[in-house]
């Protein structure tokens, strides 16, 4: 028996750390329009390469090109731009409100606005999203009132969740938005179960699961793919790859696999990879995947390639683990600026109108904020009652909780 060389453990590292020069030259970005559009009933085996490419519609000149283009009218695109701008402004104001001590916590979407805003427009009433904490665009684009979101963030007397939940863990059933949990990836398999239920009842509604790149490492991710594949559940399984899981770069979760989308192939699930900063591409892919689900053709796995421009949360400082300028060299750019450029190219928008829209949106967000703050913030003004703390644990309060509520003096 020959003695081998000593073994060594491989621990992946990002290309660049703080102090280094950010460089994405190793990230292959295919040309816009270069990825084919398969029929929705395609055999997953025939589109394996789509899990390794990136579906893109908007080119560098701001033109919509290729087979995935043309799913939206100019008016719909203008609405999409407004949604993304609203989410960005909402984020900025809530980030500031946290810094002012009006709430304990916030998480931004900076750079990822296109993913949830554009996806939402491919859904029908009654469909259910199982979101993470970074898909508030589903609410904004779904018409959920900003004041309600803020009431939840402030845990005030109008908080729809009665002060029980950490800020941004929204729940909005009537808007197709499942209750957010702090436990990562749990909702991915629940989305599959919801979709199975819809199929069991011969309904026409579909479910959408959401997960980040880091959380794909959770066991729930794998369970979701197994169940979705086995029962051909009418579900779209979305992975938002923003390159970062707090301080951990996506290579730690992805390992040696080519892409996150490629994980679907082993389960026989058609897998697409899309430019997450391209509103048109996200919508086209969402339309394709939701149509597959609605036609009972089964699940689709989609990886959105994007970049988390902001800090992970208000409790995080990214300069401790990545170069400050990294987001500025991200090759897929900024979703808002790209859609803006496209609309200007189409002649449907202008710098002036954009500025005007920015001002209008800021006014709307500030006025919502004023209304929410009139109902209280975390440490001032109206609050949910202490009684609410004991309610809703069960449908009916059991005797031991009644005793504890009495003990608490409420």
């Amino acid at each position, binding site marked *: 028996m020959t003695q081998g060389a000593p073994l060594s453990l491989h621990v992946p590292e990002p290309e660049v750390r703080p102090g280094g020069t950010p460089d994405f030259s190793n990230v292959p970005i295919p040309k816009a329009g270069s990825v084919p559009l398969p029929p929705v009933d395609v055999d997953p085996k025939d589109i394996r390469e789509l899990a390794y490419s990136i579906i893109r519609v908007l080119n560098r000149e701001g033109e919509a090109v290729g087979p995935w283009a043309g799913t939206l009218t100019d008016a719909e695109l203008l609405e999409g731009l407004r949604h993304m701008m609203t989410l960005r402004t909402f984020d900025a104001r809530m980030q500031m409100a946290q810094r002012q001590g009006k709430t304990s916590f916030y998480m931004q979407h900076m750079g990822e606005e296109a993913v949830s805003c554009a996806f939402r427009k491919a859904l029908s009433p009654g469909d*259910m999203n*199982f979101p993470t904490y970074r898909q508030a665009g589903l609410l904004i684009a779904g018409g959920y009132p900003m004041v309600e979101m803020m009431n939840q963030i402030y845990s005030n007397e109008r908080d*729809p*969740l*009665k002060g*029980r*939940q950490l800020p941004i*863990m929204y*729940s*909005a*059933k009537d808007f197709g938005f*499942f*209750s957010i*949990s*702090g*436990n990562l990836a*749990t909702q991915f*398999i*629940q*989305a*599959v*179960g*919801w*979709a*199975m*239920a*819809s*199929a*069991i*009842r011969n309904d026409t509604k579909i*479910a959408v699961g959401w997960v980040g790149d880091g959380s794909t490492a959770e*066991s*729930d991710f794998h*369970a*979701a793919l*197994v*169940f979705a594949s*086995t029962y051909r559940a009418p579900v779209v399984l979305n992975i938002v790859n923003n390159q970062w899981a707090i301080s951990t770069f996506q290579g730690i979760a992805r390992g040696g696999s080519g892409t996150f989308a490629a994980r679907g192939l082993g389960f026989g699930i058609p897998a697409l990879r899309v430019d997450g900063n391209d509103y048109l591409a996200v919508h086209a892919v969402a339309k394709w995947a939701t149509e597959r689900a609605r036609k009972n053709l089964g699940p689709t796995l989609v990886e959105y390639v994007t970049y988390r421009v902001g800090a992970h949360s208000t409790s995080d400082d990214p300069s401790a683990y990545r170069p400050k300028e990294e987001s500025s060299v991200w090759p897929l750019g900024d979703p808002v600026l790209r859609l803006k450029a496209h609309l200007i190219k189409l002649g449907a928008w202008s710098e002036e109108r954009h500025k005007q829209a920015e001002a209008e949106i800021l006014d709307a967000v500030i006025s919502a904020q004023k209304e929410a703050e009139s109902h209280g913030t975390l440490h001032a003004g109206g609050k949910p009652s202490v009684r609410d703390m004991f309610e*809703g*644990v*069960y*449908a009916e309060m*059991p*005797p*031991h909780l009644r005793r504890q509520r009495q003990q608490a003096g409420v």
Partner: protein
Amino acid sequence: MPRKTMIEAIRDAMDVSMGRDERVVVFGEDVGYFGGVFRCTAGLQQKYGKTRCFDAPISELGIVGAAIGMAAYGLRPCVEVQFADYVYPAYDQIVSEAARLRYRSNGEFTCPIVIRMPTGGGIFGGQTHSQSPEALFTHVSGLKVVVPSNPADAKGLLIASIEDPDPVIFLEPKRLYNGPFDGHHEKPVTPWSKHALGEVADGHYAEPLGKAAIRRAGSQLTVLAYGTMVYVAEAAAEETGIDAEIIDLRTLLPLDLDAIVASVQKTGRCTVVHEATLTSGFGAELAALVQRHCFYHLEAPVMRVTGWDTPYPHAQEWDYFPGPARVGRAFVETMEA
């Protein structure tokens, strides 16, 4: 009234529930075509079709996680985890999701699911076919925890659990599946057909959750037990001649505190018995509640007879399982204290 085993009673409960409510679905590993490794779902797929009763991949978190999603949609899933010893991969889904969904969404989403799982030892099941993990669930606000000890209760409590608007952990003592067991492993087992509680009414009936049952009325000592230990306690009372009042808790959460307090205030003494390990077991909660609510009536410390604080062994089965001799000694000690 027809006599049934606990297995048949549990199957009957699902049959009745599926027949009454189209939203009830049943799935788990080997649950569909084959009818379950303990036969608890035999015939259900044939009767209700593959979309109401079906086989699942070997993924406990997948089974429970999917059930939660189905419940959020509006179904009433009754799922099976093959052994309670294998529920741990689903623990996050149960604790963080099923138990909290109503609370965290302020009632927008609810989770009316039942998670059935065979539990308990006394069958040479070794470490991973004998555990009693109830305390891991009674510690979780938002769950209900049920442990039947006979066919009549098993059916009524399972129907009530399926109809309950909250998530229920339904622990089935597999040692009792075919007949009552008092810990006398040297004697042949009597089948349920020879036991009064083997009489199971046809059709629909529900036993309310949160209500204990007095199995043996007595004046000297209150025994708090559930599952297999109900019969062990009965044997110990018989063999020691102590006039013990044996309370079958049936539901551990929410607990029937009134029944417990009434009995202990009458007898002045209390012994708690369970198969699960001692430290931080459910017995600790029972003992604490009894001393809090019956302090001035107690004439002796509350005793606990439980499994040892070890993993469940194989060869040492009867030295581990709290049998009638060990339980009887605790009764005597409590009387002499």
